[in-house]
């Protein structure tokens, strides 16, 4: 079995070597590039997903051009790591749509997405998945289509359901990182509990008005309890976002920061906002990092 696999990999690398193009990048460094179509063709020939072809290419110092601009800050082997990773995005609204967009372009190999909603007119101000011509469609369906249009190499597993205590673990199981892109406090607390049970890190982001907050929670951390209080059942389901609305800027910004936390966790690089709450007041131009 292994021999067959090695043999196949060797053949794929030979194919890649045949079609590679030598390019000189802007600082004058030579590299060999593989195009999107070449990945698709070779993938089709060997009945493999694009990401598997891309992983083999990167391991052989051949650069899939779609990731070339990642490589100033992400090494080819780190790009392999991202292509091998599985990340769950729970919620596909203002936060989740942008997180999906970023992780898809970044080249996270497997994405789990979940949201039961359909696209509504009130989403158009901020949700990147929403368009006038897809109103009424399932967010998960629209999200899978968009992700595939951007990056056909990756896998997207969709759950068009409401994520609740009785199904959360099943949905996020197998993910290495879970991203909280929900829109209410009780669901976030439920998701944190499921992550703790499965020993998964959770990246939390939330917004209201021109404000946003971010923290990263590992299973042993107290996490959201430190923010929302010891007795979360006292809390109203909705917070200040009801009064202050959800304009487009804050979700896009917090979504970007959540995606950056995912990169840091997967690549074990940089400093996480762990046991820290980043609180942004964009109108005032204030960014505070509070130790929790």
């Amino acid at each position, binding site marked *: 079995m292994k021999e067959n696999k090695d043999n196949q990999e060797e053949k794929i690398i030979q194919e890649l070597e045949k079609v590679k193009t030598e390019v000189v990048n802007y600082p004058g460094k030579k590299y060999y590039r593989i195009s999107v179509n070449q990945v698709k063709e070779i993938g089709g020939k060997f009945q493999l997903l694009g990401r598997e072809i891309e992983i083999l290419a990167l391991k052989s110092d051949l650069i899939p051009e779609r990731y070339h601009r990642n490589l100033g800050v992400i090494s080819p082997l780190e790009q392999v790591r991202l292509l091998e990773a599985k990340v769950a995005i729970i*919620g596909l*609204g*203002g*936060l*989740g749509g942008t997180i999906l967009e970023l992780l898809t372009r970044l080249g996270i190999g497997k994405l789990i997405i979940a949201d039961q909603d359909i696209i509504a007119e009130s989403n158009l101000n901020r949700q990147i998945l929403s368009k006038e011509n897809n109103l009424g469609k399932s967010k998960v369906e629209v999200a899978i289509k968009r992700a595939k249009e951007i990056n056909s190499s990756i896998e997207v597993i969709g759950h068009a359901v409401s994520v609740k205590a009785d199904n959360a673990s099943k949905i996020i199981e197998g993910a290495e990182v879970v991203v909280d*892109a*929900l*829109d*209410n*406090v009780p669901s*976030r607390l439920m998701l944190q509990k499921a992550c703790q049970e499965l020993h998964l890190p959770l990246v939390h*982001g*939330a*917004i*209201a*008005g021109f*404000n*946003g*907050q971010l923290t990263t929670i590992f299973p042993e951390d107290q996490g959201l309890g*430190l*923010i*929302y*209080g*010891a007795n979360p059942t*006292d*809390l*109203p*389901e*909705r*917070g*200040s*976002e009801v*009064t*202050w609305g*959800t304009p487009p800027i804050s*979700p896009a910004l917090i979504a970007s920061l959540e995606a950056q936390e995912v990169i840091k966790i997967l690549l074990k690089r940089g400093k996480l906002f762990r046991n820290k709450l980043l*609180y942004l*007041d964009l109108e*005032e131009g*204030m960014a*505070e990092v*509070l*130790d*929790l």
Partner: protein
Amino acid sequence: MLVKVKAYAYLREVLGGEIKVELPEGAVLKDLLSSLYLPPAGVEALIDRASGEIKPTILILKNGRNVRFLEGLLTKLEDGDEVSIFPPLGGG
């Protein structure tokens, strides 16, 4: 003793952003969160009038620690303490 109070988001408007408050020695959070030291509209935004407790939608940290995990309104304050007050956010 001098305590720094920092308010965020809409609470900035009613509490005045960042202010320094001179309190008597031995003061607790409840003393600070009164109209003696803060604008009445600010106190109104933080404290539930009926129960006298901190509203559930308000997060108060003393030097980064949620006061709900300390002694709530009876949390002791000391010179140089920083009290951060803000609404935790829930939207997405």
